[in-house]
């Protein structure tokens, strides 16, 4: 793990001048209390707080631009903050500075039902958006679990359980309004299917973790609510059988919306936590199918056939919403079930993505590593994408325990890279995976650094994240 070392005041000037100017200009919408600064000092990953000097709550693009111009002139870091659900210390103010909280930029600006798109301010959360879409027959499918803001999801290129069918933020952001490092608002992309003329700036900014520009508005693709949703669950004798079932389904082009894998450790935790009946502590797949009534029923049946060919058992499926929620309960409560395994412990979440044929091996080798270290770490996988998550439970009072967890996460990244995968499929680089990024990309990191330098020459946008600026 890369330690979060600040670059002590190199070229940084007058933070206090910026703070004063913001207090004067924004009054109660600029806050310097310790409690608020602390709340903005970390995401949902490891706590390791790094406090900004001030938190400011702009209301529109012009205010964001004005704040960035102020920071640009004074070379003060500026960090965008949604609701703080990121996991790799993306929002930690490593060098202090100004945190822009988008809480007051939370309006759905337009919903174009006929065009299947909408435009939102960065502070709109995905649950809020879906609530506002009620009655339109449309929905926004990307679901990373947390009720993140759309701005944060775009900045981290979020995906989640629905990616198999609907893609990730990469495929679903049509355009952006971005405030550049010098405080200029620009528009990228548009409402047309094909991205805007010129380079694909939209996709460069999506996933740049606030280091290339501050996203203020997002144009999003929407989807028609499926006529029918069915859910299914199936247990397997071993991980390999579960993964082979998924591979067979993908080959047959069964349009599964979600395929989630819980390993036996996680299932054991879920059975106890959610008081499930009829399940064993065995690798388990959770499916969801979206489509027409006839289609989703057929898909579930086909899935059962494939699963049974691969040793699947206890197959259950339903189309009724209440029953669906019950079937998926274990998956929905997985994180809390994992935490409940070791009361008093904290979770250190990490993720990796490998070619699907390597998934079982990668998970099993990681499991062996966890056992060697005497740790507990349930595994949940978005198995259709070869992506899996490890929740390492460590004792926060024991530094050696945390080091063990960090070691396992580091080796998990290396293992995924060696298997032709990536050190992160969802969580991102943030602060924690800078070393892994270099391991994965080699010299290409130099070009990423050049991009960072080109778009943010004074390194004020979320400094210390995403790309290491020094060898």
């Amino acid at each position: 793990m890369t330690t979060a070392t600040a670059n002590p005041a190199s070229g940084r000037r007058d933070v206090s001048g910026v703070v004063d100017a913001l207090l004067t200009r924004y009054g109660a919408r600029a806050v310097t209390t310790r409690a608020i600064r602390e709340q903005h000092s970390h995401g949902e990953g490891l706590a390791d707080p790094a406090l900004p000097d001030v938190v400011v709550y702009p209301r529109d693009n012009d205010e964001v631009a004005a704040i960035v111009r102020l920071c640009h002139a004074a070379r003060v870091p500026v960090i965008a903050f949604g609701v703080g659900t990121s996991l790799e210390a993306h929002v930690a103010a490593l060098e202090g500075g100004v945190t822009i909280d988008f809480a007051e930029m939370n309006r759905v600006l337009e919903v174009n039902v006929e065009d299947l798109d909408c435009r939102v301010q960065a502070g709109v959360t995905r649950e809020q958006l879906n609530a506002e879409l009620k009655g339109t027959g449309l929905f926004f499918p990307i679901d990373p679990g947390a009720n993140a803001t759309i701005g944060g999801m775009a900045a981290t290129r979020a995906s989640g359980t629905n990616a198999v069918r609907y893609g990730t933020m990469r495929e679903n952001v049509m355009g952006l309004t971005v405030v550049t490092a010098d405080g200029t608002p620009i528009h990228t992309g548009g409402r047309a299917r094909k991205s805007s003329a010129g380079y694909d700036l939209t996709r460069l900014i999506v996933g740049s973790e606030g280091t290339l520009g501050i996203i203020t508005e997002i144009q999003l693709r929407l989807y028609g609510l499926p006529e029918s949703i069915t859910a299914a669950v199936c247990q397997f004798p071993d991980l390999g059988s579960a993964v082979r079932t998924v591979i067979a389904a993908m080959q047959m082009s069964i349009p599964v919306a979600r395929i989630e894998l819980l390993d036996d450790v996680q299932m054991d935790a879920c059975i106890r936590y959610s008081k499930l009946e009829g399940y064993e502590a065995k690798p388990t797949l959770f499916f969801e199918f979206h489509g027409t009534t006839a289609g989703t029923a057929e898909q579930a049946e086909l899935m059962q056939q494939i699963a049974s060919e691969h040793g699947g058992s206890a197959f259950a499926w339903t189309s009724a919403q209440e029953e669906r929620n019950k079937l998926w309960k274990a998956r929905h409560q997985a994180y809390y079930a994992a935490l409940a395994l070791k009361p008093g412990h904290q979770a250190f979440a990490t993720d990796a993505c490998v070619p699907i044929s390597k998934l079982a091996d990668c998970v099993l080798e990681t499991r062996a590593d966890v056992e060697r270290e005497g740790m507990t770490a349930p595994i949940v996988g978005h198995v259709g994408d070869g992506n899996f998550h490890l929740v390492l439970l460590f004792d926060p009072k024991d530094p050696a325990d945390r080091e063990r967890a960090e070691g396992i996460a580091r080796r998990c990244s290396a293992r995924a890279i060696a298997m032709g995968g990536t050190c992160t499929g969802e969580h991102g680089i943030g602060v924690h995976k800078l070393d892994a990024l270099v391991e994965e990309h080699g010299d290409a990191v130099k070009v990423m650094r050049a991009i960072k330098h080109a778009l943010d020459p004074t390194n004020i946008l979320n400094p210390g994240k995403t790309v290491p600026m020094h060898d």
Partner: protein
Amino acid sequence: MSDAIVDGWCARIRDCAAREAPVAIVGGGSKAFYGHRVDGETLDTREHAGIVDYEPTELVVTARAGTPLADLETALAAERQMLAFEPPHFAEGATLGGTVAAGLSGPRRPYSGAVRDLVLGIRVIDGHGRHLAFGGRVMKNVAGFDVSRLMTGAQGTLGVITEVSLKCLPRPAAETTRVFECPADDAIRRVNEWSGHPLPLSATCYVDGRLAVRLSGAAPAVEAAARKLGGDAMPDADTFWRSVRDHAHRFFERGSGEVLWRLSVKSTAPFTDFDGVQLVEWGGALRWVRGASPALDAARLRAFAASHGGHATLFRGGNGRDGIFHPLAPAVMTLHRSLKEAFDPVRVLNRGRMYAGF
């Protein structure tokens, strides 16, 4: 052998950068008409060809830039898979590298994704002559900036593409095309309405007063949708869609002095007569306009496209005096120049292909 070719290209680009001598990247030349003419020493990607890795169970293929698109598609078809963005060939000899560099997608694009959505990883040589890898062969990757997508459609101005990993999809089990006679505005209204329903649409095309709608998927779903939509069955639909994809359809035959514009707009943009004939694809989102050069006014077409959330490109013909690609806002242009500078400071790669200077 192939490594030696790439090493050779790296050395050449370093040498050209030292001499400030521009390099013109070429493949099969099938899209040479697209964009501004580039002068410079030719770098022919076709000597670096072949599929590097294809694992049908992974639904991922990795191939060298010079691989003929046709060869790649044949290899995928043998496993009943396909490139879901239905890449246009335009002419024989189109290469994978050129396809990704041009960033153009075919009829299936609105329903299965654009080329950039399906590019998982890419290898390029930058203007410093460094061979670099971005992304990889997995479906999800959030490690660092998304340079693979930036390269897609950058027309070789940011790097010479040497290798690409693409997501592929199983071929649909069944496919059928229905045809409807209707006026243009009615066609646009209908396809937009259908797009909001769970129908297995895979292409739409309105031309010559007829709307063609392709349905792809599992046989029962395709049959049910065909019954629901009505219309007449199109015989030999594959030939029709290939002709639309590759601009072999007679709509694309330009008379002397005629130009072809490509308007990318939101799908519900109203049908507008521009003193030319039109072919409408992508559920209304792509409008091809053909007509005589002075009558088709660049400013008018661009204003229309911009007011409907998109942009207009002078795709074929004309002298490009008004620019070929849609003008960029000044602040966006500044970012483009900065990016070009980051990848290719001496501006050796395909200089001027998109805009003045890059």
